[in-house]
């Protein structure tokens, strides 16, 4: 899967699951948790979606919460090795 497609699918998932008003208006740099676009309870579901995109499990013990800052940090942490 190409980088642009992965980013688009991450964005689509966030838009679909966000309860925030104006949720579609964010960039790849937007702080999705700090801005309230996703909540901490959405993260488990999001991790499973990311695993399905990567085709392998994520060990959450090995990752820092900062990874979930934005689409940019997510892409770098989870897809630069396998893209």
């Amino acid at each position, binding site marked *: 899967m190409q980088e642009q497609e992965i980013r688009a699918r991450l964005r689509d998932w966030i838009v679909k699951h966000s309860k925030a008003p104006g949720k579609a208006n964010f960039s790849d740099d937007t702080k999705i*948790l700090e801005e309230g676009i996703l*909540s*901490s*309870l959405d*993260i*488990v*579901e999001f*991790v*499973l*979606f990311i*695993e*399905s995109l990567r085709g392998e*499990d*994520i*060990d*959450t*013990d090995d*990752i820092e*919460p900062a990874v*979930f800052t934005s689409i940019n940090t997510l892409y770098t942490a989870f897809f630069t090795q396998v893209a």
Partner: protein
Amino acid sequence: METASELAVRLTKASRKKFWDVYNFVEWPEALQTDVWYMPPELISLYGTPAWDALTEEQQKRLSLYELGNFFSLVLQGERPLVAGLVDRLYSKGNTTSVNEYLHHFVDEENKHMVMFGEFCNRYVGKVYPEKKIVLPREYAKGEEEVAFYCKVMVVEELGDFYNLAIEKDERCDPLVREVNKVHHIDEARHLAFGRVQLAELFNKFAPGWSAETLAGFRQWLGDYLRASWGDYYNPTMYRDAGLADSYELRQMAMSHPACAEFRKRASSKVVNYFIKTGLLVEEPAL
């Protein structure tokens, strides 16, 4: 009504009377029986869906072992922060002596459950399924974190106990599995009794000081937390380990299937009714 402190006296006596040794309570066999259910089919996360009907009985029974391993793992993973939280609360300034005494038993029993579930999962499933939760820092109103802690206790224990009771009673299930669930249920009955009274006391003490916005936010969180907890029962890795294809899609299908939603509602009714009765929730959350 009996206070948490008064109840703790009775529960401490019961815990001492029912004290058990986790290292010797069963002989762990080299291998489990084959051609049995490890969890009643009606409790399995795919039950009632076309994906379930498409499996052979052999595949269903194989899945039941991984479902049980996932169930034990998620209870174990829920008990880790529970034990940490209980230890943090030992000898807190507001505790009575009887509450401290009971918290020692609570911690001891939860630790034993983790030993037991860890042993089972490592022996027969080959692993303890990891949790995917990431804890993010947030700000709480006065007492909100304390109330949230006991809400989490009630969710993990009430949902777990629903499964424990059903598995313990079901003669189709492997006898060792039934015994493990029985032992867990006996301890959990006391933990739930304490949790119900303790949580109601804390909510009545702190919630009157919360703003309407805090209270509404808390109720939203509690419904979301219960829903997210159910998500853990539909684990794609578990489906994959049981030999099922398209595990993520299977999870999404099952979570949105009406038969599964109806099951979640039924299995949650006890804890949801408690939350509504105490005022922690004002309506049933969509599950």
